[in-house]
């Protein structure tokens, strides 16, 4: 039901983006994708989605503008503080036993989660031996993540979240205020590799001890979720950890057997090996 023509236009647009630019949104969850495409059409001033497709095919400069609508940018530092508290209290003690660590923030968007983890690892004394990988498909988001600059208006929320996560320092130790912006200390990204990586089309990464990928899979359809979860399992070291968003679950996945619950209520899983 709904507007059948618009549904056809959306399918064609996603196919055009894939064939022309190799960004594959064809298996993203439909309802949210449709809202974002319609929003892009309105705000970018196109008369129809087909008109937007026409411009996109012939003018590559349109792509980044559209990508900023299609990929999700909204997050906050230490979102769901209980997740970070569980990492601190239950996962970190296990990670302490390794001489070197790799952590993958998959779908890092503007970097809020990356800096949260970097701060947490520093507070727990693991920063010197940890290499972080922060990946996203959106080049603008990766640039923002690399910059680590957030509006000061967000800081109160970030600070509150940080405290609730079991903070050992004040969040203000990690940034300087500058003209309405909070500029996070560059030492927090000294051991971070920023990279373009797609969970839809790219392959297994390195041997990770922790993968944090929250509120990314929620945008995928079931088969695509399974692909990403398979990728995560293949990218984890033995007994490695996977953290998902609070409303995401392995329950219905083909890979459910590949993981065991580690902190069930926080959606923290551990790779299971036979």
């Amino acid at each position: 039901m709904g507007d059948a023509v618009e549904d056809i236009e959306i399918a064609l647009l996603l196919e055009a983006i894939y064939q022309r630019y190799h960004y594959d949104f064809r298996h993203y969850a439909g309802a949210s994708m449709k809202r974002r495409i319609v929003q892009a059409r309105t705000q970018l001033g196109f008369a129809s989605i087909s008109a937007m497709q026409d411009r996109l095919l012939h003018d590559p400069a349109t792509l980044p503008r559209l990508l900023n609508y299609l990929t999700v940018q909204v997050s906050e530092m230490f979102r769901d503080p209980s997740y970070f508290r569980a990492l601190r209290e239950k996962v970190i003690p296990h990670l302490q036993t390794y001489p070197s660590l790799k952590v993958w923030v998959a779908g890092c968007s503007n970097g809020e989660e990356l800096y949260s983890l970097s701060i947490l690892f520093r507070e727990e004394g693991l920063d010197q031996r940890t290499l972080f990988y922060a990946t996203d498909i959106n080049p603008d988001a990766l640039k923002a993540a690399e910059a680590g600059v957030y509006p000061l208006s967000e800081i109160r929320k970030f600070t509150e979240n940080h405290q609730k996560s079991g903070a050992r320092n004040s969040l203000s130790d990690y940034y300087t205020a500058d003209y309405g912006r909070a500029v996070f200390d560059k030492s927090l990204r000294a051991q971070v590799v920023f990279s373009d990586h797609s969970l839809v089309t790219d392959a297994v990464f390195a041997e990770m001890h922790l993968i944090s990928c929250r509120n990314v899979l929620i945008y995928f359809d079931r088969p695509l979720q399974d692909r990403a979860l398979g990728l995560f399992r293949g990218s984890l070291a033995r007994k490695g950890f996977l953290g998902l968003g609070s409303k995401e679950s392995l329950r219905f996945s083909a890979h459910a057997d590949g993981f065991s619950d580690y902190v069930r209520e926080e959606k923290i899983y551990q790779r299971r090996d036979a």
Partner: protein
Amino acid sequence: MSTAPIEAVAIGASAGAVQALLHILPALPADMIVPILIVVHVPPDRANALVTLFQDRCRLRVKEAEDKEPIANGTVYFAPSDYHLLVEGQRSLALSSDEAVNHSRPAIDVLFETAADAFGPALAAIVMTGANHDGSDGVRAVADAGGTIIVEDPASAQVPTMPAAALAACPTAHIMPLNDILAYLVGLTAR
């Protein structure tokens, strides 16, 4: 009322929601088939306590909506806090972390617009008490898709702002006090 049989009900409520829903949901009969999807504005950092509150008081199954969950008959779904609740084309539920709409996540507009898309004329959307304008764009989408729109009578709503805004957006909506909304929902069972 629209002549198409109603296959889903979507409800949006904000300030005063709990009291209004307590008037409605516990009174619904156990044999009600039509699923009910509800967005209530709750603070993002608080677990949504509505499911617990209504579970024991209702004859219908009450649960928090899960991502990719098929919509089951005779079930009341609440949006979780800090996520939008959407309906997919195949009539399953979806959650999203998209930015707040009308300063709200979950937002009533998001539920109404996607439910209108999925159910078309088979959707009844109900706007209840609230102190903001969320749901106004949503009722327009429901109207465009040929669905039924009911607005709690601003004269008797605990907080009239939201129903009044919905009425302004959709002047042809049916205006009902809570008792009539309840009777309407019970009537869906009889058909």
